[in-house]
């Protein structure tokens, strides 16, 4: 890559926090539900009151192991808790319980498609993934003109898994591919909801450039970008930062050796990164083992049991769908990337309709679009997979055309009824041969010009007759109308 000057290489490493889908917090019994009134899901433990003690949530350990296995990490036989110490009002104990030198997952990787060469894949290494408790939320109310801050500690103590990649990504596209695959695996295995808007997936991107100046590699200072609330924002922030760092280097000549890592925020409305802290000092978190918690021993059996419970991973499902239902890699990708619920939905539709390709295209177009319009997840979609399968079976067998099928689809969205009932309600009956014959005869007689045009070589002229036939009898199957019209014209 080159930006109007020297060739550059972009170096990206991502730190991703996923909130584990436990019912209760990491060290107490408080609920982790999102959106409750401020400071209502708290207790002495997560408030850090004097004398309160943490008790580890085994469910979070199980999810972390699952996540580690899904990312091809190794899970050590012994892991432990450490305290990371810093002062902030949303951290009521003055330290965060985290993991320092013995993380629960280490040395994994994710394979992504190589954006420059679709048939190849790129391996992004994962350095580690460790468990930690979330902090609360600080809300700085600058609107009032007073320097007043409010603290909501509901989130405090919620389990997070911080997944740290190696700086292996070379473009914002690769970063997005990595995130998409990561999210897919986490949601697929029920580890996390990964809702960026709700904060159950957070991304920090470490970015710098290697600029090739006449064969000499110059590294720009590393910037950590925070506050990105969508994958799109991650892409745009990285792209912005690439340009900014190049410009900064041109202007100041500063390299990685001249500046410590800086923290920048992403302003989505202004589409730019901005420096978050004026004074950067390297923090000393004074990690040490938390004496309130015991080290965690993870016997091989527990890990193997978790591995057995993983089931089919997304990559395997992609391959299987292609073979089993005859769909293209692109289509398998779209379906699988939507997550497990849609995969299950697709498979039921495909099995019931007996037509994997048609099922794939209907789901990608009609179902996904409608879900998007309705803002509803697969589980709440008004048309069950069985029903859609039955509908598509009729299309494949020719008893229903696509247009009428869409009418039925629309009717099913609005009404709780069977496909049969919907067809009846819409007055769809199959038109018998004689009826169709006379309808076509009539149309040809009253449109001699079309017949002339057709015979003169304008094959598409026939389309207007099909349209008219549909108007006269909405139940007429366009394909059958076409065939009948052509047969009559040929016999004239």
């Amino acid at each position, binding site marked *: 890559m080159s930006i109007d000057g020297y060739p550059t290489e972009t170096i990206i490493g991502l730190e991703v926090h996923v909130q584990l889908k436990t019912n209760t917090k990491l060290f107490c019994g408080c609920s982790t539900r999102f959106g409750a009134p401020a400071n209502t899901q708290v207790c002495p433990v997560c408030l850090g009151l*004097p004398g309160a003690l943490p008790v580890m949530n085994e469910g979070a350990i199980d999810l972390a192991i699952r996540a580690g296995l899904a990312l091809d990490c190794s899970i050590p036989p012994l892991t432990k808790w450490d305290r990371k110490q810093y002062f902030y009002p949303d951290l009521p104990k003055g330290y965060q319980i985290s993991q320092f030198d013995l993380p629960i997952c280490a040395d994994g990787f994710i394979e992504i498609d190589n954006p420059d060469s679709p048939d190849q894949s790129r391996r992004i290494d994962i350095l580690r993934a460790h468990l930690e408790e979330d902090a609360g939320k600080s809300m700085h109310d600058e609107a009032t003109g007073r320097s007043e801050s409010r603290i909501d500690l509901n989130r405090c103590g919620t389990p997070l898994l911080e997944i740290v990649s190696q700086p292996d990504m070379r473009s914002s596209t690769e970063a997005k591919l990595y995130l998409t695959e990561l999210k897919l695996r986490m949601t697929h295995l029920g580890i996390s909801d990964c809702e960026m808007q709700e904060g159950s997936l957070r991304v920090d991107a470490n970015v710098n450039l290697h600029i090739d100046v006449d064969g000499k590699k110059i590294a720009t200072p590393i910037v950590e970008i925070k506050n990105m609330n969508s994958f799109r924002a991650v892409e745009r922030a990285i792209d912005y930062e690439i340009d900014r760092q190049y410009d900064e280097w041109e202007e100041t000549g500063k390299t990685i050796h001249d500046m410590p890592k800086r923290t920048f925020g992403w302003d989505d409305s202004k589409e730019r990164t901005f420096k978050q802290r004026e004074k950067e000092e390297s923090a000393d978190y004074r990690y*040490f083992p938390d004496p309130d918690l015991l080290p965690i021993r993870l016997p091989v059996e527990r890990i193997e049991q978790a591995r057995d419970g993983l089931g089919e991973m997304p990559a395997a499902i992609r391959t299987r769908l292609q073979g089993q239902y005859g769909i293209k890699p692109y289509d398998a990708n779209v379906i699988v990337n939507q997550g497990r619920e849609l995969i299950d939905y697709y498979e039921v539709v495909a099995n019931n309709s007996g037509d994997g390709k048609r099922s794939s295209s209907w789901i990608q177009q009609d179902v996904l679009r409608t879900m998007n319009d309705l803002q509803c997840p697969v589980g709440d979609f008004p048309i069950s997979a069985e029903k859609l399968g039955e509908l598509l079976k009729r299309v494949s067998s020719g008893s229903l055309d696509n247009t009428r099928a869409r009418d039925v689809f629309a009717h099913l969205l609005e009404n709780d009824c069977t496909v049969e009932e919907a067809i009846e309600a819409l007055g769809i009956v199959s038109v018998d041969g004689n009826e169709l014959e006379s309808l076509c005869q009539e149309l040809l007689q009253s449109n001699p010009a079309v017949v002339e045009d057709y015979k003169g070589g304008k094959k598409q002229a026939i389309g207007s007759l099909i349209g008219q036939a549909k108007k006269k009898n909405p139940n007429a199957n366009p394909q059958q109308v076409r065939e009948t019209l052509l047969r009559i014209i040929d016999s004239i």
Partner: protein
Amino acid sequence: MLDSALEILRLQSTGEASAVDVTEKVFESIESSESSINAFTHVDRDLALATAEAIDKKRRAGEPLGPLAGVPVAAKDVLCTKDMPTTCSSNMLRHFRPPYDATVIEKLRQADAVIVGKTNMDEFAMGASTETSAFGVTRNPWDTSRTPGGSSGGAAACVAAGNVPLSLGSDTGGSIRQPSGFCGVTGLKPTYGRVSRYGLVAFASSLDQIGPIGWSVPDVALLLQAISGFEPRDSTSLDREVPDYTSALQTSDLRGLRIGVLRDALEADGIDDQVRAAVHDAMQVFKSAGAELVDVNLPHSEYWVPTYYVIAPSEASSNLSRYDGAHYGHRATELDPDQVEQLGPLHATYCKSRGEGFGAEVKRRIMVGTYALSEGYADQYYNQALKARRLIKGDYDTAFTQADLLLGPVSPTPAFPLGEKVDDPIQMYLCDLFTVGANLAGIPAISLPAGLNSEGLPLAIQLQAPALQEARLLFAGAAYQTTTDHHQQRPNL
């Protein structure tokens, strides 16, 4: 002067006294001694009487009663109580009232004990003289010009003064045993994990343990029984069955018991001659009770105090981070404009609040601990101390293959005059010379009164046992108290 807990239980069961009678006596006693002793940070007569009345009512109705029914107990002010302040004798928590009870407090309530108040202590349990309290010093009932010891000075003094038969203290480096020794009462530090720490305001989490203080071994056993046991809210509490501590205490037969004498401790520099003599006397007592005496050494004992004074402050520096003025506790109202300028309003608030809320000793330990955990120093100090701690534990493991119990002094000297060491931290830290080993190793230990010195001050001996062998300590302690009357001596108030 109040009776023993066992006697109070007997009097109530025979109807000779009610819980209310006993409680009234407690507050008469406190009223007469408190101005000279200052053992309490908070007492609540009305609350205690209401509890006592409820217990009497239950007794009259023939309802089942807990094992401490109507027995007055005082709790060190480091234990959370939802109906009384919990100050840790610090300005930082002067007005703090926890919304919950510590597990041991819950257990006391379940046992139908009458909690009469909270006892004074060194601020956040950091000290050996109760002089670092923000609520004034506590004085030794045997000689009010002297310290009762610390940090559980109030808890030991109120028992010695006869205010209550029993109290709860906490012991991080000797804070139950040393004040018990200075005040001529019996104090036991249980095995780490024997008693739940939930609701004990943390000083050094890996060392802290709650334990009972009373006149005699049977009373202490009674309270230990009530507070011991596994509790899921404390991950470090031990899921092990609690034996019956109160039985088999009426004995003077110690045949078959091997008592290891800590020779190095007896020959240590700075140990008082009369303290040494008290241990020698105790050796004779145990020997005549049939115990076998063997000499035992703990080779790394010279590292106990340095190891302790790295680990305890390190953990404390972290545990005390929560007192930042943001959520509860003391918050500075007027900020230093220079600090606001330099650090911004948030950090200026932290600095001023912590600066005002904490006393000098607490600040000293926070700074020492912060330093010991800092990048570049942790290997030299904190991590090194962890290694030393493992060696110290190993010494005990070896020693307990040679002996069933270890005998030695509690403190190098009897109670020292108030003001003597308060400005000399090193001298103060050396008070812990013989006690911190048990905390570092996590084992139980008991302090037993061993007579008075020539100035009429209590002397004490210490027994240490392998983990979870509290019953052995109590058994030997009871035998000692069956053949001696040191524990029956009372100060003249």
